Structures are given as C-alpha cells and as structure tokens.
C-alpha cells in the first residue's frame, strides 16, 4: 500500500494528497477482495468436484460447462432464499454475527504476500496481527450461537469457542518457531528468509513438524472436517448457523471458506516460502511467476484440506480437546528447542540430524504416552 502511495505521489499526477492516500488504500483492498472472492467461488466448485470423485460419483456437472457455474447458482439461490430471523432471537446480535465472521477472515489477508512486492500492508508485526485477528472470529461464532436462542446452536457455539481457543495456543507456538528462524515478524521478511536451495522452512525437521501442527490447528480454527464439531450435521443440526438462512447463511459459508483460504495463505507464507520459486526473480514478469507460485502452493494446501475432509471421520469432542492439549501443545513446545539445536549447532547437517532425532523421540514418546490402554480382547461368559 505504501509503495502505491509513493508511486502516486511522485507520478506527478495532479492529485491532492488525500485522494492519493485514499486511492492507495482502496486499490489493494479491491484487488485482494476481488482476487480472493473468485478463489473462494472456485474453491467451492473444486471441493464439491473432488469430494464427489472421492466418493465414486460425479461432482456438479449440470450448471455451466463442467458445473463451473455451480458456485454462482449456489450464491443466487441463497440470495433469493427468505431470510428468517427466529422470534426469540436477539435481533441486533443475530444480524451482526455473520458480518463479524467474515471480517477477521478478510483482515488476515492484509498481511499475506500474494506476489513479489504485492502485499496489501507490509506491517512489521504481520504474522502476529494475522494470528491475533484470526482468533477474533471466536466472538462472532459465539454471538451467532447465543443470539439464535436455540439449544443446538448454543451448544455448537460453545464447542466452536472451546475448539478455537484450545487450538490457538499450539498454532501460535508453531508459528513462533518459524519467527525465530526468520528473525522478523513481517511476512515479507519471513518469505525472503526462505530463499536459497531447499530454503523453505518445511524442509527442516522442526519446520515439517511445525507445518503439520500449524496445518492441523488451521483446520481446527476454521472448523473443517475432521474438526467440524461446531456444525456437525449429525449431532447438532447445523451448529451455530442453524437459525440462519438466505444471505446470512451465505455470509457464514463465505466466512468459513475464505478463512480456510487465508489460513492456507498464512501456512504457505510461513512454511512453503510464499511466492518463492525458480522463476520469481525474472526482471519484468518475475512478479507474475511469483504470483503463480503462490497460488500453486495455496492450491496444494487447499487440496490437502479437501483430501482430509473426504477421508477422515469427525473427531469426538473430548478427543479433539485432548489432542490439542496433550499432543499438539507439548510437541510444539519441544519443537522450539529442536529449532534452537538446528540453529546454533555450527555444522548444519549435524544440527539437522540432532533436531530430527529430538523430534522423533518426542513424537514417539508423546504417542506412547497418549496411547492409553490398548483394549484387550473381550471375553464372553455364557451363563448356562
């Protein structure tokens, strides 16, 4: 945004200072919103097609050439649908909740570097801001659940809040490891720190573990299967957005999917070297190639999400929370010394092996610890 502002200033165009500022602010917003809304629409289509193919059936292929207009059709349908507000609902909070679900999802986008030199706002506390804002969606979830005055949605909201709060801690700790390695909080700085051959943080042992933890927590934060407890259809109707219909429901869906994409964006920035790729430093078309790299990696992360959604069953509430506090948290805590080992040992190879060894021990130890009693074979007695 500042770059555009300078650009406008010294471009000599007859423009008053405040208009240049306004333009500098509006331009990135329009680009980011437009870009990520189309990615959102495309994502819903990809998800339904992929889930279909996984379950041996064709995905949507009626609306548009290969079902490509399906998101448009969904959106239109939800627009036309009647917007019912339950009688006992608390009107103000009921109306505000969907808005507040979408706001954090888009706010996180301000710090995700889409291409080389293309980041909406280059905050020097980028990643911290992204993590802080992504936790703000907790309140919106609660407002939705509480406002619709219905037991199931309140139950869903409480589950959602508990889940997000308990998965936020390992997530921040997993991000801490990367920040230590990159030495800065600004997202551009982190991406630049991953240059060089196999420079991505994922290639490091502690980076891989942190990537797995961050990706699990991101899935839990956004309540996607296998962690979609808050809106588990089979158990509590549709969780906190039971009482929403029409466009408010569309906002909820959009909020969830865009949050999934932005979390994917943050994961790519932190672990997969945002826009870095073989051709990203070319003189003129470098930024285009880097954008291509970014969206390819984003696609990879989103595909993993969809793949997990198509495969794994839903997790029980207590397992969900136990997994967060008993496995992810200790693992991410041990990850920090592992990173230190890698960082401070003189020879990188030894450091690599040392941290890998420590993490392997930690992993096996934790799983052994949490394995719980193996169920012995049940014996039956026939009382004659």
């Amino acid at each position, binding site marked *: 945004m500042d770059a555009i502002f300078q650009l406008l200033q010294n471009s000599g165009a007859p423009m008053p200072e405040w208009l240049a500022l306004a333009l500098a602010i509006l331009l990135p917003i329009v680009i980011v919103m437009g870009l990520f809304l189309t990615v959102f629409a495309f994502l819903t289509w990809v998800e339904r097609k*992929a889930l279909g*193919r*996984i379950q*041996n*059936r064709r995905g949507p292929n009626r609306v548009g050439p290969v079902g490509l207009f399906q998101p448009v059709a969904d959106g239109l349908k939800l627009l036309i649908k009647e917007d019912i507000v339950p009688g006992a609902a608390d009107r103000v909070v009921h109306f505000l909740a969907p808005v507040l679900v979408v706001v954090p999802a888009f706010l996180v986008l301000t710090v995700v570097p889409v291409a080389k030199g293309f980041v909406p706002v280059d905050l020097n506390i980028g990643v911290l801001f992204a993590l802080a804002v992504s936790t703000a969606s907790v309140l919106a979830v609660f407002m939705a659940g509480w406002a619709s005055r219905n037991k199931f949605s309140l139950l869903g909201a409480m589950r959602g809040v508990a889940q997000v709060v308990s998965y936020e801690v390992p997530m921040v700790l997993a991000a801490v490891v990367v920040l230590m390695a990159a030495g800065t909080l600004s997202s551009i700085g982190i991406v630049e720190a991953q240059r060089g051959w196999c420079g991505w943080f994922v290639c490091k042992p502690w980076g891989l573990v942190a990537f797995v933890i961050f990706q699990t927590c991101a899935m839990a934060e956004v309540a996607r299967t296998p962690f979609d407890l808050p809106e588990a259809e089979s158990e509590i109707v549709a969780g906190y957005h039971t009482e929403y219909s029409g466009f408010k429901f569309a906002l909820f869906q959009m909020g969830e999917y865009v949050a999934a994409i932005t979390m994917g964006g943050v994961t790519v920035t932190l672990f997969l070297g945002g826009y870095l790729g073989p051709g990203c430093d070319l003189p003129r078309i470098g930024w285009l190639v880097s954008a291509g790299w970014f969206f390819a990696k984003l696609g990879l992360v989103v595909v993993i999400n969809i*793949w997990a959604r*198509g*495969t794994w069953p839903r997790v029980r509430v207590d397992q969900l929370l136990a997994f967060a506090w008993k496995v992810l948290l200790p693992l991410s805590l041990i990850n920090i010394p592992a990173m230190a080992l890698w960082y401070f040992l003189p020879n990188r190879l030894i450091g690599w092996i040392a941290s890998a060894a420590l993490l392997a021990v930690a992993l*096996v130890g934790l*799983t052994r610890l949490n394995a719980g009693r193996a169920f012995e074979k049940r014996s039956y007695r026939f009382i004659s």
Partner: protein
Amino acid sequence: MNGFPGKGLLEGLAVTAKNFIGSYFDDNRKERLFTYQYPEERMPLPENSRTFPFLVYDGTPDQLRCTACKVCETECPPQCIYIVRDSDPNGKPLQRPKVFDIDISVCMQCGICAEVCPFDAIKMDCDFERSQHGRFEELVAHLPSLLKSNDYYHHIKPTEADRVDATRKRVKKPSPAAAAPAPTPGPAVAAVLSPTPLKPMSPPADILTEDEKRAWLKGYQSILGTGPIVWPLTTKKIATTPQPPTPAPAAAAVATPPASSLAGGEPWHDSGLDLAKRMELAKDRSLADRLMAAMAQLDCQACGYDCRGYANALAAGVTRDVTLCAPGEDETKNTLETLLKEAGKL
C-alpha cells in the same frame, strides 16, 4: 500401537486418492463412477417393478377386459379407485365401466387391485414419470388414459403377460367385452364366467392327522402357481359347519345347478336384468331363491361364494353378513336385509 503414529490416517488418504484417480480412468460404470445421468441415461428397471395400475384391453381399446365388477374398488386399501358401470341407451347396465378413475396421488402402488381382479383386467404399470403441475385434478387418471394394450403389457412384463395369457387361453374365455353387449341367458353366463375348477378352500373335515393335513396343503399349494386363484377374501366367511348345503364347495355348486332349486331353473340369474325385474321373476320362490335374485348375478365371488352359494349360506344362517355382494352395492344389501327380516333370520 502398531506401526508409526498416524499410519491409519495415511492409509485412509491412500484409499481416497486411489478412488479419486481411479474414477478418471474407468468411468464405464463398471467399478468406479456408477451415477446414471438420469434424464439422458436411464437405469434399466427390473421386470416386476410396479408403479400405478392400468387397464388392459385386447385388440381395440373398447375391448377392455374390465367388467366393472368393482372388486378392485372395494379391495383397494386407500380406496383410490372409482368405477361407474356403463349402461346401454335404454338404461340396461352393461358389463363395462363408463367411468374408471384412479387417483394416483392416493394410490400406494400395492398391486392388490391387480391381484384380486377376477378378469385380469387391471395390471401394474412401470411408468413412473407421472408428475403434473396440479395436485388434484391432474393427478386423477381417467379411463382413456388408463387403457393400454395387451402387447404393451407384454412389452413391459413379458413373463407375467405370457403366464396370464396362457391361463386365459386354457380357460377358452372369450373376452367378456364381446359377451357383454349381447346378454346371454343366465346359466350360460354362469358357466362361462366360472374360471377353472377349483380345489375346496378348507381341508375336508375327516382328515385328522397332522401330516395328512400337511399333505393336503402341499397338494393345495401345488396348484397355486397354475391358474388365477380366487383367494378366500375374508377368512371369517368360510365356516366349515357341515349343515347341508355346505357353501364351501362353491365350485361344485357352480358347476352343476344344485338340486334344491325348483324345476323352473333360475330365470333371474342374468346380470343384465335390474333388481326389480329379478325380484319380480323370483316373487313366489323359496327364500334362498329370492335371496339369490337380489344378488348382482355376476358370480364374481367377491363374497367368497357364487350368487347361489351366498344365497344358500344366508338362508341356512351360516353367515349373517349381508354386505358381501360388492357389485350389488346398497340395493342388494337392503333387499337381502328386508328378505331376511321378513323370514325372521336376522
């Protein structure tokens, strides 16, 4: 914990990946993509899949098999069939329906009408695309739309149609429609209408031992698959009390007119006559004869007997239920009631 942690998760991923990639390679519906794109491709329906009933006609649509005996109307569980008998210009009722409506929004496609129809007139179709815009009038199927040819029946249900035609040919029964316009005198109609000779419904009283009964039953079941079997529609009617004349051997009664009737035969036994003319013919006859005259003379066995058997049963007090003559409807019921009251039986 066998294997490294998360092994199960990865195996799950492998399965879905195999499915996902596999579905792009062989989508000839052998093993992966089994969806039928409905309007374009249609799944072949199994032969005896049934939806709504239809009326069969041989040759031209007005040679329909249905004689408007209303058995199906009575037996239809949700009562969604409505029949009005046709009558020729001077008011004489004919053996064909003028109005035959089936409300397919009520019909539960149970197939009982096809089962109980004595004349194989109504069979179950397999055409399910019957949705309409309206919910009331459009969903009532009237006679013209119900009529479908026998070859259509052969087309949709070959084996069943062949079996039905085989039994019909064995009975050498010309289609009743041909007989209806020229009402033949009474006994001839009875002879024509009675289908194949039947085994008695209940085992003869003198079989005592269990296995003898089972042997009889096995014998009885052997004929189940051969011809149109008339089910004992309501079990309570078959009383096996041995008083003469036992109504059970309905077949015997039908085959040879019982000796007990007077020498004058049964001039009233003609479904072409209306009730008044029939009662007039049987005016000074015995109670059984007058009761029989009140019947609809169709020998349709809706009551479990034929007209003579039911009259005898009423006269002998074997049964006191006067509502069994389905085709006769209320007029028969009332006359039976008055006659039995006069005779002090009811």
